């Protein structure tokens, strides 16, 4: 029996809203970026709260949340940049599972000290899988940004299950440290530069998106060039003018700038959420 799909109607799109899962693996050699949730920890939390596996597709929004109408009953959970979830004028907290009745309208109050927010739905958003993943990416999936008026399919819950989960966790201390490993071209840095990379304070600039985050406080300029080499989310590139760029989930797969650092897995999520101007230091993973 084919279950007909319920749908989420997008009443307001929010900013740079898209569907993401853990990403598209196995196609780096074809030049296809991994994509996936910018803050993987928050996304996994939202998924677990509605009983999904951590790779279920969910809605990611940036700074400005979307407004959604659900056509059939389900459970949702919101995490990341959220203070309150408003369902038909009732307020709920974030990081808790919320029952959604047929036709319910969901809006969110953003926290504004983070960037990315997540809305999970029980069973996951059922947009088409392309090359093994539902993560939206221009040129790979038909859609790459949620627009007002579109619908997003999901499976409604049929029998009334009870979900009453919530997570309490210590707020990420607005990050003083971003944990890193040495990158493949770390040795292109002089001894002094190798010391100052962890001694200097950096912050994120306004030049940031799903591809990368440019840092404020230029490092030294240089003239090194390398043959184009593979890149990963979390790779820190050192451009000739001395700018440092932390590559994020949609980063291109190959690049010619020295790769001086590589962020630890959890540090990628942390820097994704770091507000503009907040100071941090790089710290070695011991």
């Amino acid at each position, binding site marked *: 029996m084919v279950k007909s799909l319920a749908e989420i109607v997008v009443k307001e799109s929010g900013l740079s809203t898209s569907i993401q899962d853990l990403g598209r693996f*196995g196609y780096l*050699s*074809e030049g296809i970026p991994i994509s996936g949730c910018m803050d993987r920890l928050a996304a996994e939390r939202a998924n677990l709260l509605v009983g999904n596996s951590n790779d279920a597709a969910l809605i990611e929004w940036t700074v400005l949340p979307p407004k959604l109408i659900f056509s059939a009953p389900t459970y949702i959970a919101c995490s990341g940049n959220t203070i309150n979830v408003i369902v038909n004028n009732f307020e709920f907290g974030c990081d808790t599972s919320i029952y959604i009745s047929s036709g319910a309208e969901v809006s969110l109050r953003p926290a504004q000290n983070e960037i990315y927010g997540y809305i999970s739905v029980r069973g996951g958003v059922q947009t088409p899988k392309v090359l093994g993943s539902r993560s939206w990416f221009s*040129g790979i999936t038909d859609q790459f940004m949620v627009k007002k008026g579109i619908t997003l399919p999901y499976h409604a819950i049929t029998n009334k299950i009870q979900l009453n989960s919530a997570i309490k966790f210590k707020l990420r201390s607005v990050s003083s440290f971003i944990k890193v490993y040495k990158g493949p071209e770390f040795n292109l840095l002089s001894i002094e530069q190798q010391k100052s990379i962890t001694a200097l304070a950096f912050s994120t600039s306004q030049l940031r998106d799903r591809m990368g985050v440019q840092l404020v406080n230029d490092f030294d300029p240089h003239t090194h060039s390398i043959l184009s080499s*593979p890149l990963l989310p979390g790779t820190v590139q050192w451009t000739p003018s001395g700018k440092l760029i932390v590559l994020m989930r949609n980063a291109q*797969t*190959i690049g010619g700038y020295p790769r001086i650092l590589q962020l630890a897995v959890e540090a990628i999520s942390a820097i994704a959420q770091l507000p503009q101007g907040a100071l941090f230091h790089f710290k070695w993973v011991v």
Partner: protein
Amino acid sequence: MVKALILEALSEQIQDCANGYNSLLVIYKKTVSENDLKLVEAFCASRKRNTKITHGNIWEVPVCYHDSFGIDLQTLATVKKMEVETLVQLHSSVTYTVFCKGFLPGFMYLGGLDKRLFIDRKAVPLLKVPQNSVAIGGKQTGVYPTESPGGWHIIGRTPAILFDVSKKIASKISMGDTMKFKPITLTDYIKMDRVNDKTKLITQIG
């Protein structure tokens, strides 16, 4: 290639494997120990002794070097102090090697460009390079599989689709393969552009 061998030998532990010109990236599914890495290193070292050169497939891609597509063709010819015909001849007579893919999904870094065609990237990149543009940048040439910003000099356009995610194999041409560009007229281009499956315009010649 080492990459294929590593993927085969360690397929259970590895999520993805990608290469640049002279480097290899291995992504593991789980955290690995120093010891695991030493195993791969030893594995690679053991392969060095049998340096069997593998020959990939040879492909031919049609290109229309017409002013209406190759918007930088005239300027480039003027800078290089050569006739447009000579430029086209130099570009289409060479067999190129696919060193790696990246930048955009399906974008191939092609090596083997004639020295006389080397040219620095544009100071100001074009915001929208049309899909399927054939271009030269630095010591390389390539085809833009999708519309994108780009700083390379555009000399023509292919009617062939090089990258199609709806196909089981998104791009026919693999890393390590070689390829040639075959000049076609504007009339040929218009004819080929009407073909249903434009991935078939890429022909295997060896």
